[in-house]
């Protein structure tokens, strides 16, 4: 084989396409709808139908020249290459991209998680020769607790402090819907109040078959009525002027970073909820081993530790530095 199956900037020569490119390209394969993976302005986009729906909702119908939907489990032959998408479990529609050329198999995970989540298609392990994995939580200090236990802590805090309003900081795409679903599954049947930035995407999830219960815009509610209630808002809003409309708010944040108390303190979070949409350290290790890959490229996060670990397992491994990604960015950049 003269040309590699995949280059280090996630370009696939056999089909002349980029995976999650940071700048507009002629052809792009998009793993999922978060802004650091899905951008507007590509000539053609190949993605799951759900991801395409999310991109159109966020960026408009004409955010790419044309869209091609590929369902999970279907394979698309383009010249020498076979392309397929497999559930990544990260958010609704999120996919791992599998490319096969002349018997060589590469897999780009995008962002992924393995814990069950009814707002995203369940993660599916895929075998490959070259694995490109994210490492958002690629340090052994990240051992995510059960999300149900974290939601129980939130509900206990709500019950213990009936005069206060709980503001839960969540990214608008994925995290918000997952937290709402977890609350519903834990038996919280009161209306859940939403910051304006959440509304469109929650509606889209409902349209795509994810039931979220009664949701009400938080803006415009009388202050006193919000005591004992739960509001979902973007992290930037929960400590902003916007939050002053609620009675004595308890600032909560749902994120994998919240396991580090010093981080929670810096962010002035009073109730950290360790709910992550990424694999923790153990799950990253497990996924790498299960893939059977002999070569691992590590990106998006704390690459050093995961590369070191892979080498200790006897695997070839190197970090990828993809342009436009800060080493300490938010969860999934979202």
């Amino acid at each position, binding site marked *: 084989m003269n040309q590699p199956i995949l280059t280090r900037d996630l370009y696939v020569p056999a089909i002349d396409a980029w995976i999650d490119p940071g700048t507009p390209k002629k052809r792009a394969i998009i793993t999922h709808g978060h802004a650091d993976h899905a951008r507007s302005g590509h000539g053609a986009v190949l993605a799951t139908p759900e991801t395409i729906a999310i991109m159109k909702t966020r960026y408009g119908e004409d955010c790419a020249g044309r869209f091609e939907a590929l369902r999970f489990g279907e394979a698309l032959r383009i010249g020498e290459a076979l392309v397929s998408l497999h559930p990544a479990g990260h958010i609704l529609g999120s996919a791992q991209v599998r490319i096969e050329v002349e018997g060589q198999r590469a897999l780009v995970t995008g962002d992924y998680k393995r814990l069950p989540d009814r707002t995203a298609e369940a993660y599916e392990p895929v075998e490959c020769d070259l694995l490109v994995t994210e490492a958002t939580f690629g340090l*052994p200090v990240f051992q995510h607790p059960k999300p149900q236990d974290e939601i129980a802590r939130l509900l206990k805090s709500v019950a213990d402090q009936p005069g206060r309003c709980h503001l839960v900081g969540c990214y608008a795409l994925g995290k918000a819907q997952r937290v709402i679903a977890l609350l519903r599954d834990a038996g919280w049947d009161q209306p859940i109040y939403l910051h304006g930035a959440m509304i469109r995407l929650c509606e889209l999830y409902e349209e795509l078959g994810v039931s979220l219960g009664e949701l009400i815009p938080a803006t415009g509610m009388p202050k006193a009525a919000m005591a004992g209630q739960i509001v979902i808002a973007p992290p930037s809003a929960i400590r902003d002027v916007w939050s002053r409309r609620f009675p004595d708010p308890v600032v909560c944040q749902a994120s994998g970073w919240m396991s*580090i*108390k010093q981080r929670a303190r810096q962010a002035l979070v009073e109730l950290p909820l360790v709910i992550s949409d990424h694999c923790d350290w153990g799950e990253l290790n497990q996924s790498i081993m299960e893939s059977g890959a002999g070569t691992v490229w590590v990106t998006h996060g704390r690459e050093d530790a995961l590369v070191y670990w892979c080498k200790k397992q006897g695997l070839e491994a190197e970090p990828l530095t993809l342009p436009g990604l800060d080493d300490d960015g938010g969860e999934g950049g979202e």
Partner: protein
Amino acid sequence: MKRFADLLELLALTSSRTRKIAALAQYFAEVPDPDRGLALAVLTGEMDIRNVKPALLKETVLAEVDETLFALSYDYVGDLGETIALIWPHHGAADLPRLSAVVALLNETSKAELPRVIGGLLTQAAIHERWALVKLATGALRIGVSARLAKTALAEMSGVDLQAIEEVWHGIKPPYAELFAWLEGKTERPEIDHNARFHPLMLSNPIEEHDFERLDPRDFAAEWKWDGIRVQLVLGRDGVSMFSRTGDDIAASFPDVVEAAMGRAVLDGELLVGHDFEAKSFNDLQQRLNRKVASARQMSELPGFVRVYDMLFDGDEDIRAFGWEERRARLEAWFGKNPQTRLDLSEVLPFDSWEDVARLRRQGADEHGHEGVMLKLRTAPYVPGRPKGFWFKWKRDPNVVDAVLMYAQRGHGKRSSYYSDYTFGAWRGNEIVPIGKAYFGFTDEELKQLDKWIRANTIGSFGPVREVKKELVFEVAFDSAQRSGRHKSGIALRFPRISRIRWDKPAHEAARIEDVEAFVG
């Protein structure tokens, strides 16, 4: 232990002082002895689990976790205790026993057995209990709770005056059963030998430019600000104690001072070293402070003495409610009756106007290296804490130099994700050589800007250290410069801090090493 872990977590994450006090008061009211007293000891820094040190915890963890992965994790998390709590790879299901049982277990286990016992506790604990366990074991809380806040909660809970609690504090020991009994009205106030213990110190505020307009110089007395360490000498019935400002008794390190002291009193002053009451540099004092037991040679080369400036008890009489002027008169009379060889009186400086004081301050700094002057309200009583308007410190202007940022490293604790430790340097020929390191002197907002600048201008990384483009100039304030082998430049600044960030200044206009050498003296 779960209740204690919940309390620590709440204290760490609540920024509201009122809410912290309420949570502490509730804990002390609801949790039984001796657990609450032990918790109080942890919060006030009085808990010492002798055999458990951070190194032992680290060793326990490194038996289970790869060393490189641990180092990368520690660099990322920024707090050793939290790193250990988060990285421990084994999980059990049971809750930890109550706080007093955990403390007893840690205290009674032999050194050889400790790693196994600690490992067992870490496995047994839920993650946030692990965090509390490590905090408890190492004593390094860093959760934004001061001993004073804990005592304020005791006052809140009981209605007893905070000052009354402070007064008995140094005479009682964990788990403080007699304290709680008194606070709950079940017994009388604990009996303390009232002058054989530490009395909380009175502290000063820095003077501001505009203060001079409203203050009348005739109401104030001036003294030199000495460059030693603040001590409280308790010349009691059963011996002499010498407390540091945090209440540690350091008498054992200075037998030359305490054995020579005559009379009965509680005195406030500055511990210095030197012959015939000629104070040597702080560096010289440091050599004695570093030693638990002083050698005969040290005591003859660097004899200690205390320069006294205030009196809290005259004999057994509490005179703290008297004004400064009256206490000073008592102090002078006491020196007249009790001749001393290792104590002398701090002189009162005569002046008529604030301009006079400004001149004295400059002269004192230039000719004698004094740190500045203290201004004391003549009518002020001796009040523990930092009361407003009574004592002012007017420090000499610091030396400043414009230096270039060279390297940055992530901070620890609250700043763990920020590049907040800075190494800076001066020009030697065409290269820049390091002259010091500073990690404070900027606002939170400036820290964010610096962090951003550093991330955008990194040209190399060495482990946790980032090398940056030599383009950003800091105005660095410092107390003095010394020869030192620690830096390539051969010079180190004492007590450097960032006084301004000179975003505007081009790096080539920064100081040359010759400019810095001029400060060595």
